[in-house]
């Protein structure tokens, strides 16, 4: 016979207000198997917990039920207390008579609340009687991490994890790390030069012995589960031997062919053998094979001729490497929405209508104009520049519904940079709202207006057209209730920040969720901002939504903190609330495999000693299972049970009602 103790909490007046806890305790006492029952003012208080511990010892309890608040609130507290008194913590259960009972009843006579309190307690006791003691599951942890994406968020995460003494594999798709931040001229609100603050970090990555950098590589597959991932990485052929190349740049110098520069966003061209920008890390060039005559027509080969250490290898092939890691940080960043979608602004039709990111390159001292603001059409210094905000952002019909968050700030910065470089210039900004929420951000925007004279116009642009070498912009200023017209020399569009093309594909590859815009979902928007539904996989930076540099760095460090926490011991303990498959009953229909949102169930083949296939059944990976119970519901043959929530327990509870 069970020896169960019942503890009914008054929670001050939270429960006692509408539930007669004394009565609930008395009713429970009458149930078979209950040997001890009482109520108390605050069960979660130290005296309350002590009482529970003493009762376990004194009455030799083999099960404890606490009728109190939601298990979310204090299940851990009482299980810990039970454990301390020598009782298996999973033999301690809770009945929620607060959130689901006292708080939703208003009957001050306590009549209805007490009835429900009794019911909930009785049901939980029946469930508890059938509870088996469970043991925490220990999983070994591979203490090295994978960081996908070498932008500022990924760099920060990699550096912090390495700082914590753990190995990091940093995978970057482009030939160099640095991401979008490497393109920026100066950064708001302090106006420090982006490359000046970024490149030291890039070099740190290169020099850090704990960081293995795979540039020009892509993650193809992530298998496994928290602490035990196997990652397949494709290292794209650079046609340059990394071990031999000294980064002297002679090949780039001598290469006679050119192609549009991705890094400069088409504002200029680069050689066919190239590094994206002078401070690239690693400083190893790659050959753009589709544009290289050597590959297309077997002509030229100048780079191989001039290369001293003979590092050029036209026969190089992609290689695939496999790495074992315990945690993954996804920091794949963002891209800008293609401007062509907004015909009224003339992007693509008029050369002097450019994107904000292109303006960054024009303003950058390492950019195609050496930092002078010159318009693309004729290289003239523009006197009048119109900036249009919310191009694609906050536009449910043609763009995206969300605010891209950084455009207000970078547009204000652009007007400043323009005015600093073109003293006689005039900047106009069409905006809907100015969103400058951040430390020193509002002051920054006001400075652009009050000190540097940017003319902010509250309204949208209706039309942009070319006339006598000018770009005429028509729009509204709702503050003066008028239509306005500006003869500009150049127009800059603050286009929306969108998720990277193919971000949903990567989400599927690594088993995390993404929203309808392709941004990755955090586990909880407030309390678990860097975790994902897939344990052991963390997020950092703008792959989860528009984000500025400080926020990306925050998230990179936060993700690194989580990774280091996970790596603090060689094994990690997991809650044993996982699904178990009864192999004899499973008929291998695989409904559970399809239903499992965590990809925790595999198709297992049973073989005999000779290697003959004897049968198949579903197998739950305890490291991945989150105990949600979807498979239990999906299983037609009732072969799956959830530990701690078995069918037997649930039916017993229902029958007790």
């Amino acid at each position, binding site marked *: 016979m069970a020896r169960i103790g019942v503890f009914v909490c008054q929670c001050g007046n939270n429960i006692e207000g509408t539930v007669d806890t004394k009565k609930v305790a008395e009713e429970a006492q009458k149930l078979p198997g209950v040997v001890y029952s009482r109520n108390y003012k605050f069960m979660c208080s130290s005296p309350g917990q002590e009482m529970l511990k003493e009762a376990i010892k004194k009455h030799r309890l083999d099960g404890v039920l606490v009728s109190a608040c939601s298990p979310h609130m204090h299940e851990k507290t009482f299980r810990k207390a039970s454990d301390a008194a020598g009782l298996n913590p999973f033999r301690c259960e809770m009945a929620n008579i607060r959130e689901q009972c006292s708080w939703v009843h208003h009957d001050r006579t306590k009549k209805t609340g007490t009835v429900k309190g009794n019911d909930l307690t009785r049901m939980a006791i029946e469930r508890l009687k059938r509870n088996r003691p469970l043991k925490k599951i220990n999983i070994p942890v591979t203490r090295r991490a994978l960081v996908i994406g070498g932008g500022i968020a990924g760099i920060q995460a990699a550096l912090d994890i390495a700082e914590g003494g753990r190995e990091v594999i940093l995978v970057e798709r482009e030939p160099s790390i640095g991401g979008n931040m490497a393109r920026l001229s100066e950064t708001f609100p302090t106006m420090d030069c982006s490359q000046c603050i970024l490149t030291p970090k890039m070099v740190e990555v290169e020099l850090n012995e704990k960081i293995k950098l795979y540039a020009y590589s892509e993650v193809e597959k992530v298998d496994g589960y928290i602490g035990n991932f196997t990652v397949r990485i494709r290292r794209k052929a650079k046609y340059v031997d990394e071990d031999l190349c000294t980064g002297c740049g002679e090949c780039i110098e001598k290469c006679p062919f050119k192609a549009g520069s991705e890094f400069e966003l088409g504002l200029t061209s680069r050689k066919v053998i190239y590094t994206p920008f002078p401070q690239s890390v690693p400083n190893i060039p790659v050959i753009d094979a589709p544009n290289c005559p050597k590959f297309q027509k077997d002509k030229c080969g100048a780079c191989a001729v001039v290369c001293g250490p003979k590092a050029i290898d036209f026969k190089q092939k992609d290689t695939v490497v496999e790495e074992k890691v315990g945690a993954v940080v996804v920091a794949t960043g963002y891209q800008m929405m293609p401007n062509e979608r907004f015909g009224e602004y003339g992007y693509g039709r008029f050369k002097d209508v450019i994107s904000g990111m292109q303006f960054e390159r024009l303003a950058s001292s390492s950019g195609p104009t050496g930092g002078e603001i010159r318009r693309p059409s004729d290289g003239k210094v523009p*006197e*009048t520049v119109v900036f249009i905000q919310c191009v694609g952002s906050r536009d449910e019909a043609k763009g995206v519904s969300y605010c891209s968050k950084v455009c207000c700030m970078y547009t204000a910065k652009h007007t400043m940079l323009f005015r600093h470089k073109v003293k006689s210039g*005039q900047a*106009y900004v069409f905006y809907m709202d100015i969103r400058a929420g951040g430390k020193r951000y509002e002051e920054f925007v*006001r400075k652009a*207006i*009050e000190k540097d*004279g940017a*003319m902010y*116009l*509250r309204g949208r642009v209706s039309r942009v057209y070319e006339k006598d070498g000018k770009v005429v912009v028509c729009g509204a*200023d709702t*503050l*003066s*209730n*008028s*239509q*306005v*017209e*500006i*003869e500009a020399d150049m127009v800059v569009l603050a286009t929306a920040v969108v998720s990277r093309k193919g971000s949903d594909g990567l989400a599927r590859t690594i088993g995390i969720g993404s929203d309808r815009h392709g941004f990755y979902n955090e586990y909880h928007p407030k309390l678990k901002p860097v975790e994902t539904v897939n344990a052991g996989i963390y997020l950092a930076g703008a792959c989860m939504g528009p984000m500025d540099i400080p926020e990306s760095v925050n998230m990179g460090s936060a993700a690194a903190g989580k990774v280091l926490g996970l790596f603090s011991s060689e094994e990690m303990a997991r809650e044993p609330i996982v699904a178990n498959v009864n192999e004899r009953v499973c008929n291998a229909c695989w409904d559970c495999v399809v239903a499992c949102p965590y990809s925790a169930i595999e198709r297992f083949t049973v073989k005999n000693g000779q290697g003959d296939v004897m049968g198949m059944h579903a197998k739950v990976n305890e490291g991945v299972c989150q105990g949600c119970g979807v498979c239990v519901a999906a299983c037609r043959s009732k072969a799956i049970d959830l530990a701690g929530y078995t069918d037997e327990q649930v039916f017993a509870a229902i029958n007790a009602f």
Partner: protein
Amino acid sequence: MNIKLVKEDIESALIRQLERISGEDVKKCYQCGNCSAGCPVAYAMDVPPAQMIRFLQLGRGGEAFGAGSMWLCVGCLQCYSRCPKNVSAASLFEALRQMRLRSGGGHEEVREIPLPFLKGAPQQALVCGFRKLVG
């Protein structure tokens, strides 16, 4: 209304002179509308204070001078006391009046005001009127 915006208007001598007389910087205003909200006579103005400042920001002196609002402003300074950016719309109205009076416009000859009106008007109205209209 259709406005052609040019730097020469935004930074015109007229606007600079208004700023000099009033001691205000129109660029400081961020168009929150507190002045228009609190102004006891804004209901009767054709261009309320905030919008008047907006015209000055856009370099549209004509619209500001063309409006009758400056003659309605009583100089109570409610706008200034509530302005989060410390801009005094009243001072700008005063400057507009001064400039108008100096150019010979809007001037009232006390002698030409009918005596019965003067006798019937409250004292405060006379003080205020003389200050504003006589120049």
